[in-house]
């Protein structure tokens, strides 16, 4: 059992897959000697050389498209967007090309590529470097979308992403890079579409994504002190989305709060709430609450950014509101 940072876990997963499979390669801006803007690819250039860890020009359409074309030609590229916010200049290659090629071609190709990208606010990077965009990706058939919260999940989900024969959008939270957690020595690939019950509880189900898992666990402790026993679930991938686990939990707790950092309106939480309202509304004793960012761009100044980012206290407030 080793204690590792989220970043180290990602780095290990990349290294191991590259050692195992010569078809795996990394492309992106400053991923080489520099080790990536946040340091995730550190050391890989030294170990594998420029051929397999290659710096690109600042042309995200060409990066995502080259990964797509190389994947169609049989490689397993892992490409990095320095910030997920840059998907706007490369979305076509992802959603109209990579995601749809297999379907459009009648199933006659696979596109085994991974697009890694850091999401999230919290470092004062302002409106164009702090967004969380998972709901865009989960709306696109053909893509899979992973959002690990812990080092162990980061490691295990990235192994799965690289081995998957479909395009995977792998969303890391930049504030989590330095977070430590246990990664068992025998840790392995974690299948997509299997939610994790992070804390068992009986009174309310809190479904939380990415960094909000920590807020949810913190909220659960606060609630426990108030006699409310919350169950915390991390879906880990939002496409595929393990609704079975969520539904089982809500059948038990009769109450649901969904929490994510993305803007609440049109966020992934809406989908989860809607599915529950469609499948098991009769089990609910309370309204379904969503906790998410307000409907504003991400502001720069610390007090504004803090007010923007949803946290444990918002989850606590939501739970208390529906139980009052």
């Amino acid at each position: 059992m080793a204690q590792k940072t989220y970043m180290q876990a990602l780095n290990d997963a990349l290294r191991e897959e590259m050692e195992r499979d010569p078809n795996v390669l990394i492309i992106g801006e400053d991923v080489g000697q520099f080790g990536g803007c946040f340091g995730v690819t550190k050391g890989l250039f030294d170990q594998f050389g420029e051929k397999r860890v290659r710096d690109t020009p600042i042309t995200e359409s060409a990066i995502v498209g080259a990964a797509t074309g190389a994947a169609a030609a049989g490689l397993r590229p892992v490409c990095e967007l320095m910030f997920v916010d840059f998907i706007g200049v490369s979305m076509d290659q992802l959603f109209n090309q990579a995601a749809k090629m297999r379907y459009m071609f009648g199933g006659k190709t696979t596109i085994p590529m991974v697009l890694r990208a850091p999401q999230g606010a919290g470092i004062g990077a302002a409106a164009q470097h702090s967004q969380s965009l998972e709901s865009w990706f989960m709306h696109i058939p053909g893509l899979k979308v992973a959002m690990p919260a812990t080092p162990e999940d980061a490691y295990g989900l990235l192994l799965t992403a690289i081995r998957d024969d479909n395009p995977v959008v792998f969303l890391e939270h930049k504030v989590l890079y330095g977070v430590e957690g246990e990664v068992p020595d025998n840790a392995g690939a974690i299948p997509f579409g299997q939610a994790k019950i992070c804390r068992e509880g009986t009174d309310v189900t809190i479904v939380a994504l990415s960094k909000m898992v920590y807020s949810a666990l913190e909220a659960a402790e606060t609630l426990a002190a108030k006699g409310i026993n919350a169950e915390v679930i991390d879906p880990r991938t939002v496409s595929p989305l393990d609704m079975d686990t969520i539904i089982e939990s809500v059948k038990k707790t009769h109450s649901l709060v969904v929490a994510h950092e993305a803007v609440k309106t049109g966020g992934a939480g809406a989908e989860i709430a809607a599915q529950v309202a469609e499948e098991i509304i009769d089990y609910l004793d309370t309204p379904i609450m969503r906790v998410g960012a307000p409907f504003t761009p991400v502001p720069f100044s610390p007090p504004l950014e803090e007010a923007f980012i949803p946290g444990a206290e918002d989850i606590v407030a939501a739970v208390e509101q529906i139980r009052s």
Partner: protein
Amino acid sequence: MTISKKKMIEMYTTMYRIRQFESKLQEFFAASKIPGFVHLYLGEEAVAAGACAALNKEDYITSTHRGHGHLIAKGGDLKLMMAEIFGKSTGYCKGKGGSMHIADVDLGILGANGIVGGGGPIATGAGMAIQYRGEDRVAVCFFGDGASNQGTTQEALNLASAWELPVVFVNENNGYGISCPISKSMAITDIADRAAGYDMPGVIVDGNDVTAVYEAITAAVARARKGEGPSLVECKTYRWRGHFEGDACTYREKDEVDEWIKKDPIPRCAQKMLDEGILTEKELDALHAKIDTELQEAITFAEESPLPEPADLFEDVYA
């Protein structure tokens, strides 16, 4: 460069095959037999035929919305193409793709593409895979004059040249992007002028002369195979029909169209072969007849094939 008899006949055959295929589609579209819309390649046959004659089966191409010519030239099966365009379950894509998304990865065809400029980055990726594995292959990206302005195309040109990838960018300059003449979409008249901005050779050829296209692409392909990087070959040509079938084409003068129809690449090549004694009139007729039969078989195959079942909708989303 001397072009073998065999190559000449091969190229002519390809052009004629494209011509007949597209002419049939024109008929079928007018008769409302085809769903969706089609962009015909009539008049531009020499580009695809000349370019693909310089390639091997293992080489990759990316195509465009106007893709039938490229696919046929790269060896696409007429039956499977026709069935796909008819939306039949026996088609290349089981009816899921249609005219704009036909692909055959086994033949290196990484797809027609509904997005103008969509193919550049993908071809570059195929080039990256070739270089990565040290294979003796190239990737060819077909793109239009309109597509040449798209940012994705220019990013692809840059990446391919920065990494010296074995990619050949074949520009089909037919003078228009839908109704927009190049005089309005760019300040230059020769797209090849952009090559210098990527330190790659930029060549202009008569896109209605199949041998000229073949020679230029052969040189570019040789360069790519030697690891010397990408090239841009601009082929000046013209589309005879509207942008899509149904386009009344009010933005072009009849004279201009007539002028270009006179430059038909097919009789021009036929004449050359007759002149050089490569083929006799009789052999030419036999060749035509053979293709016509093949095409008729493809049509029958497409017409007699079943439509997909609604439940097929759900398949092939994920591997």
